[in-house]
């Protein structure tokens, strides 16, 4: 074939402008801001009532209160039980949800335009007349506590928990979830009070996107929200996050984990910071995508992991920078070396012209695609208004990205990324990690999966220690999708070696090649799983003679590590 035009892809054209019209804005006498974005392409509307309060405004001793209030808004009102309310929404083919994040709380609804008045009525029903029924509160507590227990088996939660604590300290951003006791202690009265104090019009805005006639709908909104009484917006004072002075290493020990979840983090910036756009571009080059530097280096070149990324989480008061990867335990140290190489490189060297242009192409290209649905556009407007960004924020978004220079990229890399004072957080096998990672940090701490600090010196070499006595029958439990699955080990020990039997719902099997090194045990389990033999590696740590904690790692792609713990019978 002599078709030359098939040899190389044609060039892209110049980017095409994107016009987002300015929405209509007004404010009711009670202070409720209303933003209406008429869009008559389809007969549907999206409503979002957003409040400038979130989990950080929960009292320190009652973390989780804001989320509890939001979750229970839809679980019972003066006129409907939770089931009846769900049925009312279903009847319309509509949706209605409420939730809280750390900074904000929202009630979201969407419906066919035909049912705009009905969905508005249901929205105000949960806003003005929630009853927070005792039985629903109890159910919420049960489910939340189950969730708290489950998340301790997830490596990424453990990494997030430590990262937040280290970066934000006693600032409320430093706590990612309430304790079991705090959830248990929530009372109906606390929810009612918090709802009354916080869900007030003068700290809220309502965003309407879709097929409405502005004037007509505004009149309806006036009627529905006009009587809503103002409240006091309390100014909250928060402790400042700690100032970092050195490189620290924090390990969460999961004995025998095949993977290390690595996070490198330092304080970032608040959402309204004027450096937001240069940082967006810089981070795109560094690690936001699958063609960014971290991914190209740590995954494509070195093959240590499926993915390596960086991100800035910029919130109302401050924020954080994170670079992350899940890598095989054996290459934990090698991965850190590459992370530091890339974090230093983006500070020390100017980025290339092409890299800069690629980053801009991505960021300006993805923006209109995100704004394509009513929901997507609502998300953008909500963020703009909640964080009080400039009025032309959406209209000038792409221009601001295109204006970022190579010099600015280097400047913000130096302002917001600090390899010499960075916090390294790794969830995985502490003994292995310590060997490989300790040279990267000035100080080291180790925690267990419950967040309890452990003695670092215990993790230095275990050579010379007598092997633990593990002979006998052990009853342990695996955390599996929020359920506890019982498993039995029958172990026969001979000095520092052992064999045994394995019994579980997954099947029964033989334990072979077991070794004991001090308190650490290692072995191989062969299980018959639906006619296939599956190998599971067993790793554990014997604590005070008769309790054990560890990980079962099925050697089958796609299956997760299964943490277990239990006791000798």
């Amino acid at each position, binding site marked *: 074939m002599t*078709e030359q*035009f*098939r*040899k*190389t*892809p*044609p*060039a*892209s*054209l*110049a*980017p*095409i*402008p*994107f016009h987002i019209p300015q929405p209509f804005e007004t404010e009711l006498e009670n202070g409720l801001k209303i933003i209406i974005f008429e869009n008559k*392409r*389809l*007969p*549907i509307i999206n409503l979002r009532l957003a409040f400038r309060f979130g989990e950080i405004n929960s009292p320190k001793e009652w973390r989780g209160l804001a989320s509890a209030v939001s979750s229970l808004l839809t679980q019972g009102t003066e006129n409907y039980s939770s*089931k009846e309310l*769900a*049925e009312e929404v*279903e*009847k*319309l*083919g*509509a949706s209605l949800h409420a939730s809280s994040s750390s900074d904000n709380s929202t009630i979201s609804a969407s*419906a*066919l335009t*035909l*049912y705009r008045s009905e969905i508005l009525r249901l929205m105000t029903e949960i806003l003005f007349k929630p009853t927070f029924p005792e039985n629903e509160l109890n159910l919420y507590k049960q489910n939340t506590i189950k969730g708290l227990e489950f998340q301790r088996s997830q490596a990424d939660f453990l990494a997030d928990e430590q990262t937040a604590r280290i970066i934000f300290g006693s600032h409320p951003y430093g706590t990612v979830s309430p304790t079991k006791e705090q959830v248990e202690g929530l009372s109906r009265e606390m929810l009612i009070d918090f709802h009354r104090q916080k869900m007030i019009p003068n700290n809220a805005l309502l965003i309407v996107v879709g097929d409405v006639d502005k004037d007509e709908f505004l009149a309806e909104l006036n009627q529905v929200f006009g009587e809503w009484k103002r409240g006091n917006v309390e100014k909250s004072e928060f402790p400042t996050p700690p100032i970092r002075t050195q490189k620290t290493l924090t390990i969460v020990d999961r004995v025998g984990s095949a993977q290390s979840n690595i996070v490198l983090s330092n304080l970032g910036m608040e959402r309204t910071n004027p450096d937001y756009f240069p940082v967006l571009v810089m981070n795109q080059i560094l690690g936001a*995508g*699958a*063609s960014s530097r971290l991914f190209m280096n740590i995954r494509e070149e070195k093959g240590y992991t499926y993915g390596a990324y960086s991100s800035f989480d910029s919130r109302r008061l401050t924020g954080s920078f994170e670079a992350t990867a899940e890598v095989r335990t054996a290459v934990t140290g090698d991965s850190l070396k590459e992370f530091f190489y890339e974090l230093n490189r983006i500070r020390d060297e100017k980025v290339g012209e092409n890299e800069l242009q*690629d980053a801009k*192409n*991505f*960021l*300006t*290209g*993805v*923006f*209109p*695609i995100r*704004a*394509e*649905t*009513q929901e997507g556009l609502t998300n953008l407007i909500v963020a703009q208004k909640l964080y009080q960004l400039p009025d032309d924020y959406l209209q000038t978004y792409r221009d601001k990205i295109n204006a970022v220079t190579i010099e600015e990229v280097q400047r913000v890399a130096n302002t917001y990324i600090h390899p010499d004072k960075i916090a390294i957080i790794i969830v995985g096998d502490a003994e292995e990690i310590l060997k490989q990672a300790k040279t990267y940090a000035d100080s080291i701490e180790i925690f267990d999966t419950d967040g309890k600090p452990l003695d670092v010196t215990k993790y230095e070499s275990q050579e010379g220690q007598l092997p633990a006595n593990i002979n006998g029958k052990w009853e342990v439990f695996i955390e599996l999708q929020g359920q506890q699955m019982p498993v039995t080990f029958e172990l026969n020990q001979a000095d520092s070696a052992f064999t045994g039997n394995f019994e579980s*719902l*997954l099947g*029964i099997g033989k334990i072979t090649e077991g070794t004991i090194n001090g308190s650490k045990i290692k072995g191989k389990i062969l299980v018959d799983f*639906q006619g*296939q033999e599956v190998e599971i590696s067993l790793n554990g740590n014997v604590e005070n003679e008769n309790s054990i904690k560890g990980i079962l790692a099925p050697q*089958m*792609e*796609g*299956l997760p590590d299964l943490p277990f713990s239990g006791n000798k019978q």
Partner: protein
Amino acid sequence: MQKISAILFIFVVLLVSQTFAQVKVAPINFKERKLANGMRIVTYQDNSSPSVTIQVWYDVGSKNDPLKRNGFAHLFEHIMFKSTKNMKSEQFDRMTEDVGGWNNASTSDDVTNYYEVVPSNHLERLIWAEAERMSNLTVDEANFKSERAVVQEEFRQSVLANPYGQFYESIQKESFNVHPYKRTTIGTLEDLDSATVPDVQNFHKTYYRPDNASLIVVGDFDQKQLDSWIDKYFGKITKPNSTIPRVTEVEPERTKEKRVTVKAPNVPLPAVAITYLAPPAKDKDIPALQVASAILSGGESSRLYKELVRNQQIAQDASFGVDTKTDKGLMYFTATLASGKTPEMAEKSLLAELKKIQNAPVTASELAKAKNGIVAGKVRSLETNDGKAFQIGSAIILVGDPNAVNTELGEIQAVTIADVQRVMKKYFNDNNRVVIYYVNDDKEGK
């Protein structure tokens, strides 16, 4: 008598129209043409946002898997992301994800589709790339083997590792006698193992040709410019002289009940399925069957949930679905039992619900709720360029006419209470069902 029923009729009409006013959507005024090589082109220009979707729908699916190659159409879909004469492996990801877009593909019984969403200044590049993989696919042994391993892993995850994987397989396998729909899209490990690189080349030659494909472009473009790109990159691909093999088997109507018990390991709670043949997707009874499906199993206020899950507490979940296909498809009830309940109990309750909807008209508010749910879902699916293109592609493959995308909403809204009762009587009886009990295989004897 006649007078009374007329009054009753008017009363019902009024009641229905009160709770359900008509929702109208502006028609998608797409342009349709055919290239000289037989390729169907459907384009719809919408310049409201500078993004565009490019989709190629091939009229081939797992029903066309070659003999002893069950799972091949799907495996082939994976191969289409590998190299071509002028493209590197995975270059589609770079051409889409790196500029803010995305891409994917899927295989079902009737169709294989490939799609991209990109900022509209990249449109020509993707037209080039899709034409490239239609005409210049190259495949080497290493790529083939690695992709086959990926698909086999997908099989292990979705069928073997999932305790209900074999349940859903059995619904399809046991429900068809003659039609190749009796084979599943994911296929079997043995058949995938015996597939070879020459199979790939042969499959590409047989089905991946312009006269077996539809190109759908929706979004921001200039019509003249787009047409010239299509002519340049696709128009010059030659149409082979061979004829395209088609499925000719016709699934016969069922004449007596069939009962099957399927055993699988590690089934936590037994499940039951009762299946019936559905009319082809283009049949005029489909909208009424879809409304019936929503009344029986749309959400927690539906009949099956209220009765089997909440009131009788026989099942953890219960549903009724209509799986429409180009030829006769399937309609089936399923229930996963509650702890301590037997499959017999669930079967009895499901059939009782069937009798109920056959013997008495549904209420006006049930009808309105069902329609609202379906209509709202369909309208939402039209919000994005790719959503519109998907609706057009499905209409081409399932109904044989892209314009079905503009009539579906009206057809759903026109369904009456009488229609629902009529279709539930027409397609369901005691002699045309397949009943499947899915239970734990406790060969270990606990």
